[in-house]
């Protein structure tokens, strides 16, 4: 009983308590009113505010009434104070926000049917939810340039721009390059490139994401697919070892774009342009069917041929080289390493060479392999390809099983590989050494299987299957299991979760890591979150 009479525990001194529309919110000091309102389920409309950028308070769309303050305050800029009383539904602030929307729409073109942002547009959402009034304007709209080529990836439609300046701040604060500016004033104000500049930096496409309307559009995505028809599946960027969290936006088995997914520990709100284009490779030169000596074969025939060739080798396994890939997932590498252990084969790791010019101290790093740390954890003793090349050239290695299509070895070694009787590739793409392999087994790429990768910081991050792999491709671990059953090795799993359990029980750094929740593609149309 005594518990009930006690006062509720006082918030820690780092927090302040305020009242918003009669609801009590306790938030850390320094939070703005807009974010504090979100914690109690109040959505104050805003255009120029972005949680990952500095505060501009130039759109005036988030005005709220703060008691004892004679003027309405922009809630994005207003820092919370102890005992502050905020009203967002009173007549003054509601009218102010509605009128701001009306002003914003005065010169907005009637472009929704042809606008790429339609369906995920912040202006559409705020108008529909916060204003929804009829037009009162009959004057002609101010006309501005509709197609301005700002840079290699981005086109500007100046009429649609609502002058929020988010894109300017992205260039300044994320890319660190001042490439965009505003010119003119009033209703002639217009976004433009800074003198002598183009919108050309490694993070430029983030401006398209933060644009609350369809003013900035990506040349890669515009006029290809309607945003609301896409499904979103969380994934991890495969461009480098940073492992930016992404969403694959896809439809009917085809990815159309990658956008960053907020993760404060890894990438914040952003990702680089190069990473965004990695989706295109999912459709290029895919290996969709198993091949034996370059000709299509059934899975059954391919693994039986492989088993026969392996059986002809000395039993101690010393002549077999198994090459793991820093481009492939933890699961696929773990499965193949386990099979290699059953054979007592030598382990190597293939990785793409570092690109020093990429490293910028932000998100981009020199290591362009998404899973180098993961392979290192799975197979700490695996040698790199220098030893592999020596082994191939001296004849110590007589059979090769490799994962992926990246096998950066010299031409001489590749030529020698072609003469080998037993080269088995587990590959997503039909490229380079895969073409030379006697047996190629098709496996699912990163967007097509439930798997995980480990970034440079050792963080194991999960990718979800967005759509089915092409043709007869199966997840890499399943391809390994099929090969194992043909050679009589006891390596088999019932599903991706089974592999995960096996892996987290075996690989020490990941002991006891949870499988987490499986995520299914979410229809953006009904997600209600974008825009």
């Amino acid at each position, binding site marked *: 009983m005594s518990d009930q009479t006690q006062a509720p525990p006082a918030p820690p001194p780092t927090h302040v308590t305020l009242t918003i529309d009669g609801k009590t919110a306790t938030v850390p000091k320094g939070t703005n009113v807009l974010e504090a309102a979100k914690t109690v389920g109040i959505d104050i409309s805003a255009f120029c505010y972005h949680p990952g950028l500095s505060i501009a308070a130039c759109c005036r769309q988030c005005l709220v009434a703060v008691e004892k303050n004679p003027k309405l305050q922009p809630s994005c800029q207003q820092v919370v104070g102890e005992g502050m009383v905020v009203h967002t539904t009173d007549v003054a602030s509601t009218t102010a926000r509605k009128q701001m929307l009306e002003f914003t*729409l005065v010169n907005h073109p*009637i472009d*929704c049917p042809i606008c790429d942002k339609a369906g995920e547009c912040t*202006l559409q959402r705020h*108008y*529909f939810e916060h204003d929804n009034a*009829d037009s009162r304007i009959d004057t002609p709209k101010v006309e501005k340039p509709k197609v301005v080529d700002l840079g290699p990836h981005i086109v500007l439609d100046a009429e649609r721009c609502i002058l929020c300046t988010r894109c300017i701040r992205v260039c300044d604060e994320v890319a660190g390059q001042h490439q965009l500016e505003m010119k003119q004033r009033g209703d002639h104000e217009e976004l433009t490139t800074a003198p002598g500049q183009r919108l050309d930096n490694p993070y430029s496409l983030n401006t398209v994401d933060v644009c609350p309307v369809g003013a900035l559009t990506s040349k890669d995505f515009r006029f290809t697919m309607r945003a609301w028809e896409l499904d979103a599946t969380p994934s991890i960027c495969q461009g480098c070892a940073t492992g930016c969290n992404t969403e694959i936006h896809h439809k009917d088995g085809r990815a159309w774009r990658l956008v960053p997914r907020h993760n404060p520990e890894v990438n914040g709100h952003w990702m680089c342009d190069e990473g965004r284009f990695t989706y295109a490779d999912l459709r290029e030169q895919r290996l969709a069917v198993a091949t034996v000596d370059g000709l299509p074969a059934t899975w059954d025939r391919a693994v039986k041929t492989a088993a026969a060739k392996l059986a002809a080798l000395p039993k101690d396994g010393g002549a077999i080289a198994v090459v793991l890939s820093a481009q492939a997932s933890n699961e696929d590498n773990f499965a193949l390493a386990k099979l290699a252990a059953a054979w007592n084969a030598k382990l190597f790791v293939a990785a793409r060479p570092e690109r020093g010019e990429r490293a910028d101290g932000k998100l981009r790093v020199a290591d362009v392999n998404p899973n180098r740390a993961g392979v290192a954890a799975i197979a700490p003793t695996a040698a790199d390809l220098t030893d592999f090349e020596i082994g191939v050239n001296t004849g110590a290695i007589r059979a090769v099983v490799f994962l992926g299509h990246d096998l950066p070895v010299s031409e001489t070694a590749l030529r020698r590989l072609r003469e080998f009787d037993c080269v088995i590739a587990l590959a997503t793409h039909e490229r380079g050494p895969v073409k030379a392999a006697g047996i190629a087994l098709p496996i699912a790429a990163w967007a097509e299987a439930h798997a995980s990768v480990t970034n440079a910081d050792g963080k194991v991050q999960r990718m979800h299957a967005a759509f089915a792999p092409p043709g007869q491709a199966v997840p890499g671990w399943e391809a390994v299991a099929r090969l194992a059953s043909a050679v009589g090795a006891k390596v088999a799993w019932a599903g991706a979760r089974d592999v995960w359990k096996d892996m987290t029980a075996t690989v020490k750094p990941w002991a006891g890591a949870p499988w987490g929740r499986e995520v299914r593609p979410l229809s953006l149309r*009904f997600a*209600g979150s974008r825009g």
Partner: protein
Amino acid sequence: MADLKTLVLGRKEVAELDDEHELPHELMTVNMGPSHPAMHGTVRIVLTVDGERIVKGDVQPGYLHRCFEKEAEHATYTQIFPYTDRLNYVSPMINNCGYAMAVEKLLGITAQIPRRAEFIRVIVSEVSRITDHLTCVGASAMELGAFTPFLYFLKAREWLYTLLEEVSGARLTHSYVRVGGVGKDLPAGWLAKLEVRLTELEAVMVEVEQMLNLNKIFRDRMAGVGAISRADALAWGQTGPIGRAAGIDYDVRKDHPYSVYGEFEFDVPLGTTGDCLDRYLVRIEEIKQSMRILRQAAAAIPDGPIMIDDGRVALPPKAAAYNTIEAMIRHFKHVVDGIKVPAGEAYTFVEGGNGELGFFIVGDGTGRPYKCYVRSPSFVHLSTAEKIFHNHLIADIVPIFGMINMIGGECDK
């Protein structure tokens, strides 16, 4: 089959059977449907017969299952209207209204629907009820050999379908009602046309009733056939003409007046025996009562808007959508995202052609329902069919099934 025979003979009074005088016989299984002229709407009945007598009639619906409820979870609230048309497809307007009312209840705008829209909903619903009953009675009479009433009633039904086509643009699948009102106003002079057709329909009713009411063949096939007691009807959840034929004085329009039904005078006909003849008579009387409501509504319908004045619910006029960005956004959000319905759940029920037609909707705050359940009276009624068939002759299935008026689209959802 021996077990079944024992079971059945045990259920039937064994004492009545005189084995010495009966010929040796075996139980036989006969398929009736799914492709059979009397199994309208495609349903299969697996009959176990003892001679001509039905021992067990296993009704197997589902041939018209279209996943209505699941489909509804992937369509916006407005896109669901065409699906509701295909529930009871001889009275789609009533389905439209029932569904719209459920969404409106969830939105909390039931009281703000314009009066003219409510009157139009009542008018089109009652016209639909008449077409429903005309079809049911006409088809049943035809299946019993009386072809003329069928032709007369279908002729009359076509007049009414033509009227509904003028209102909605579609003869059968109207998709006319909207959340917040109706799609378009009644065409000019429509109510006068309706009155002309009602007068002509009265003449047709006299003709058909003269042919059927005292027709010995018709009465012999209907009276005392397929009777269900009031208690049984209650226990089995029978509503509509079937429930009322059994003496249950329940009509949603009277007992839970929705829309503007409370303002009209009409009677709820009741049967006494609960057999097929009573079901027929109840339906005939309901056609007349519907005509009564129609005449009152046509006289009292007010002028005014036919759609709620709320930007969140009503589509903007086309001219505005093409010429102002505000209306364009609203139009876009309506069509692509759907009407934003708050999270919560609502159940509404209306008097459908066959009984209480209910819609239960769970909203999750997006533009589509999280769950949309329909209480379809045909499904409830069909579940009693096996019980009613028992001990009747094979030929009796035809009037019984006809008077249950199972509508495949509604029963199978």
